[in-house]
């Protein structure tokens, strides 16, 4: 889809030619997001510098009947930030200012392009941090986090993005600028902030975010429990949850991931003989931690684990580097990596992981697991080579079977990556037609003409019929 000449002229009038990209070679970085299987070249990319430019861009797109897609750093993993079938990408990278850090009231006001880790870095001298910490936090932006309701390892204790957003300013799909919520975190009536968080950039373009900052924990302890197999590690997680302990994070890394990490620059000295390791982080008042450590040790030991405690900050960082670098390390296993995302009740982790292993074994696929066990948030990762059409077909078919297994266990098909284009047509696994009708109504209220990030989140008969021709590989897959 080519942008109408009149639209390009209008966009250039708003942002100037240098911030309005139209040549295919310039547009290439915006062809896909972190889910590289799905790609679609936008008609244009514009880089606004303030909210008024965003509003004018949206109005120009509407005038020329061209869809638009808000985008942050493009680290999303569900194909949510691509311009499906063309359209204008509104790239928020230049809206990157921290407008205020209010130490007394523990909040910050930021533009959407502020990088997640940069906010915590800026807050740290004041004894505060921004709690949601997706693994991509060195690159991903707060605006993208708002769109996806991003999580991260520490959401077990601190919650996801929606628990930390107090107020929003956004440009609605009709070009109107509205402020929602209150810096107090309370709402006089309907909680529209909560509706916008997690809406995957389909209800407008967020231009300002007021977030809660959290006091840095007084003390932190990190434990590494080494298990013979991943099922024992999952049982230990279940035992910790049932005991009422609330660690800051509980992450499982399986043997294949350990092998990849230890062979990479992220090597942390993880034991090569382990079937799985469980990383447990506890934080809070110093007095609280020693008894909690002992309880965790006992619960892990009951599943046959030996438990190490990080002796110092350097060792703690090393443990975490291994966890957060796992996805990068998997590049060693194969040219492509499919990162899945689903959630199950924690007691079901052992049986669901076993089932996922069977699915991948049956299809001859290389599976590794590194995931937020404390939340029941699985990330089965399949390493593959997209140039092998048969293997790609198996990867995609296994993906559906994995999601079905999670739903059958009482779970859902995304815990933090979102639906985007990737899982749009799997929404029917979780929701019936009437449930989806209610979601359509919500979206319609914001965007009756379907101008904002169309083709995402909700399955539509029109898009199903087109079989998403921009999703590379899907045309070869008997879904």
């Amino acid at each position, binding site marked *: 889809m080519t942008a109408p000449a009149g639209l390009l002229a209008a966009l250039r009038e708003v942002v100037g030619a240098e911030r309005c990209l139209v040549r295919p070679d310039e547009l290439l970085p915006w062809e896909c997001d972190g889910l590289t299987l799905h790609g679609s070249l936008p008609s244009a990319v514009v880089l606004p510098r303030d909210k008024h430019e965003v509003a004018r861009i949206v109005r120009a797109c509407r005038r020329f009947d061209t869809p638009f897609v808000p985008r942050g750093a493009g680290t999303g993993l569900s194909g949510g930030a691509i311009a499906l079938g063309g359209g204008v990408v509104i790239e928020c990278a230049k809206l990157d200012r921290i407008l205020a850090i209010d130490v007394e*009231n523990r909040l910050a006001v930021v533009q959407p392009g502020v990088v997640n880790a940069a906010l915590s870095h800026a807050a740290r001298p004041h004894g505060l941090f921004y709690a949601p910490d997706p693994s991509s936090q060195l690159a991903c932006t707060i605006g993208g986090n708002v769109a996806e*309701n991003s999580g991260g390892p520490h*959401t077990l204790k601190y919650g*996801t993005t*929606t*628990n930390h957003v107090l107020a929003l300013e956004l440009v*609605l799909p009709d070009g*109107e600028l*509205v*402020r929602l919520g*209150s810096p*107090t*975190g*309370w*709402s*006089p*009536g*309907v*909680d529209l902030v909560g*509706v916008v*968080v997690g809406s995957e950039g389909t209800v407008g373009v967020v231009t300002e975010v007021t977030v809660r900052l959290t006091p840095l924990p*007084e003390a932190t302890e990190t434990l590494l429990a080494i298990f013979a197999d991943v099922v024992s590690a999952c049982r230990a997680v*279940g035992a910790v949850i*049932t005991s*009422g302990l609330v660690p800051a994070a509980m992450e499982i890394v399986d043997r294949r991931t350990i092998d990849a990490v230890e062979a990479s620059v992220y090597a942390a000295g993880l034991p090569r003989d382990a079937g799985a390791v469980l990383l447990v982080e506890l934080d*809070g*008042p110093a*007095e*609280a931690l020693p*008894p909690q450590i002992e309880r965790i040790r006992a619960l892990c030991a009951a599943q046959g684990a030996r438990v190490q405690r990080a002796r110092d900050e350097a060792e703690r960082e090393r443990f975490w580097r291994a966890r957060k670098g796992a996805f990068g390390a998997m590049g060693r296993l194969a040219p492509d990596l499919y990162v899945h995302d689903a*959630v199950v*009740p*924690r*007691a079901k982790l052992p049986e669901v992981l076993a089932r996922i292993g069977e699915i991948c074994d049956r299809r001859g696929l290389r599976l590794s697991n590194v995931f*937020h066990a404390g*939340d*029941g*948030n699985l990330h089965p990762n399949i390493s593959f080579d997209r140039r092998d059409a048969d293997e790609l077909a198996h990867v995609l078919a296994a993906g559906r079977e994995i999601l079905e297994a999670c739903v059958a266990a*009482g*779970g859902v098909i*995304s*815990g*933090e*990556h979102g*639906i985007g284009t990737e899982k749009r047509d799997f*929404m029917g696994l*979780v*929701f*019936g037609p*009437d*449930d989806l*009708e*209610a*979601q359509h*109504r*919500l*979206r319609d*209220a*914001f965007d*009756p003409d379907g101008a904002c990030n169309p083709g995402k989140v909700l399955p539509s008969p029109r898009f199903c019929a087109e079989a998403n021709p921009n999703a590379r590989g899907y045309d070869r897959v008997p879904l």
Partner: protein
Amino acid sequence: MHVAPEDPRAATGAVQASTPQLSPEEQRVLRADVGDGALHEHEPVDIDGAPLAWTLEPPDADALAAALRTLSAHALPVVVRGGGSRLGLGNPPVGARLLLSTRALDGVQEFDAAEGVLCAGAGTPLRTLREALEGSAWELPFDPPGARTTLGGVLATAAVGPRHVGFGRPRDLVLGLDVVLGDGLRARCGGRVVKNVTGYDLMKLHLGGLGAFGVLVSAWLRLRPRPACVRVLSMALGSGPERWAPALAAARLPSARAAALIDPSLAVALEPSRPASAGWLLLVELAGDDAVVARDARLLGAGEASPGAIGRLRALQGETFGPVGLRFRLAVLPDRLDEVSARLERAGAALLAFPASGLLYARFSLELDVDAAGVDRAWLAARDAARAGGGFAVLEAAPPWAKRTRNVFGDTTEAAPLLRALEHRFDPAGILNPSRKGPG
């Protein structure tokens, strides 16, 4: 019902609205579609000046869906009722013909003790939920005022009690909802797991939506681990503006589950033997591991409060102050509580504040049965104080005549067209709690 503001009797509520009736035909279709025993006539229940003498109580979710289809088809507006604790919240209902009760949708459907989650019907009293959790490692993280409060009521009003500092708000605790929309469409959202971004977060529309976007059928909740140790402490903090800093520090202690600063006139309700000259009262409930509670108690340096103090605090928070009082709920930035408080005190308010969350309840007593000027003064004082505090004020409890000429949620906002668009899609016939919600 439209009340012309120029009619002084109407402005003061001296005109008693007549009780709306259901025609024989309306009774017949409701009984036919919802069930013979589902429709009852009773003594009128007054809701902000609107007397309602009929209640429709669907026995299950399918009957609720049938009820809403029929109510929509026949343009019969309802006021949705759970336990009836919060029927005075919101703007007065206009044009409502009957009550729609969720009480039959009750019972704990599942309690997963391994996972710490629970699913229950919207009509289930919170008391029943607490009983179901007795002896388990989990507690119900809701403690709003009101002995009859149901799960649906607490969610639809996003109500919190003194322990919200530790528990969080309903929006942080609900994992999934089953809802029937105004036209009878039954839609589930969320799920039963503790982390979920599968589709739009429709739950947020219903939590605090005052039943305007749908009627709740059931909800999955995240429970909280029961603390090993609980202590309730209290201390006097004088009457100068310097009281707010230590109150905020106390409320932000890691184990503080509830923390309130109460002015001398209200503090007597908490500690009856306390002289008013003792100044403002800080009441703090610490909960958690023994070692942390002990440390925080040491830091606080306060004495043990009298038994039942948190319960009395909750009652005070929810008190409606009879027919001639006003209660505002203000949400402000914590570091502006001193200024907000000073403004409200000058206007004659009695105050109860939760410093950590910036929530503040202001009570105004009126001199006369019909003191329109007094209401105006209180309204402006609350509004201006809230603005100075960077937040907002909602008029929560007031005589009907005091509500009728204003939007209790405050000024219309720029989000109003969006709210109208949502209402139109979720309640196309406009039958759910018409006119109650806001702002806008």
